[in-house]
């Protein structure tokens, strides 16, 4: 049973294999809508800030969104590495932030970032 559970965990966590593939913005859109869409939209501030233009933008700078003090005071700029770190564990990147949503697999994070980059015109 222990072996079976380990195999299941490996299957659910492909990031553990360490291989990399090209990011897929189309798949990223699907992931964004199903996983981020509970709180975010591209063009409207909802539970979280609007995301169009997020790539290349300083953290805490979307217009008319009420950020946590931690994010507002952060010097982070959103690009590949910072977005990957944010989606991996937001609290590790900016302690005191409010999102706390994590995306477990590296491939999914890369695809979501590719979509956000595309929608930001970068």
């Amino acid at each position: 049973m222990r072996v079976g559970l380990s195999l299941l965990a490996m299957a659910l966590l492909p990031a553990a294999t360490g291989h990399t593939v090209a990011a897929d913005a189309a798949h990223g859109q699907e992931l964004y809508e199903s996983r981020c869409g509970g709180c975010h939209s591209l063009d409207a501030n909802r539970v979280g800030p609007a995301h169009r233009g997020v790539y290349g933008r300083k953290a805490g700078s979307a217009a008319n969104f009420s950020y946590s003090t931690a994010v507002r005071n952060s010097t982070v700029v959103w690009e590949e590495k910072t977005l990957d770190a944010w989606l991996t564990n937001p609290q590790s990147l900016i302690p005191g932030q409010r999102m706390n949503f994590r995306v477990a697999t590296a491939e999914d994070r890369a695809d979501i970032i590719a979509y956000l980059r595309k929608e930001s015109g970068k």
Partner: protein
Amino acid sequence: MSRSIDLRRRGLLRASGVTLLSASAVALLAGEEKVALANTGSGAADIGILNVALALEHEAISAYQLGAQSGLLQKPVLEVAVLFQSHHKGHRDALVATIRKMGGTPVVAKSDAEVAKALNAASLKTQTDVLRLAQRLEKGAANAYVGVIPSFNDRTLAQISARLGEDETMHWTALTGALQEPLPAKALSFGV
């Protein structure tokens, strides 16, 4: 046996529906031992997660209100929408009680008009449009509840997050049926 579990068992023996959810969720979430956790780092972080969940529930309540008042929903879809809204109100009440019990301040809801603008409710022209919006929001909410589970310091709250997400998944499944869309072909279609 802890007081929380005793309260939950009492809740399970009581009426079904929203009252049951609220009673058991509050009992699990808001035991006396959680009081004043806002003064600790881990407690404040958990309160922050619960407040984001509360904001999500506020939005869902407004979205169903907009749908119900749109004149686009016919019976029995309208009745189901009102039922699902009552579930979200149950979630809201449980989250508010828990955040207060932990020493935090619950976030307040945006107005229905603000939510309508953010969700582009003016574009909804048919019952199918309303159902698709609700379906999209419910899937996002289910995934949000799963996605924050690793971030909870209190594992009891993580379990409650899963329970809240299960309600949203149930809503998504019913809405998908109402839209006569196929269920996911692959396993593990929800989650992160």
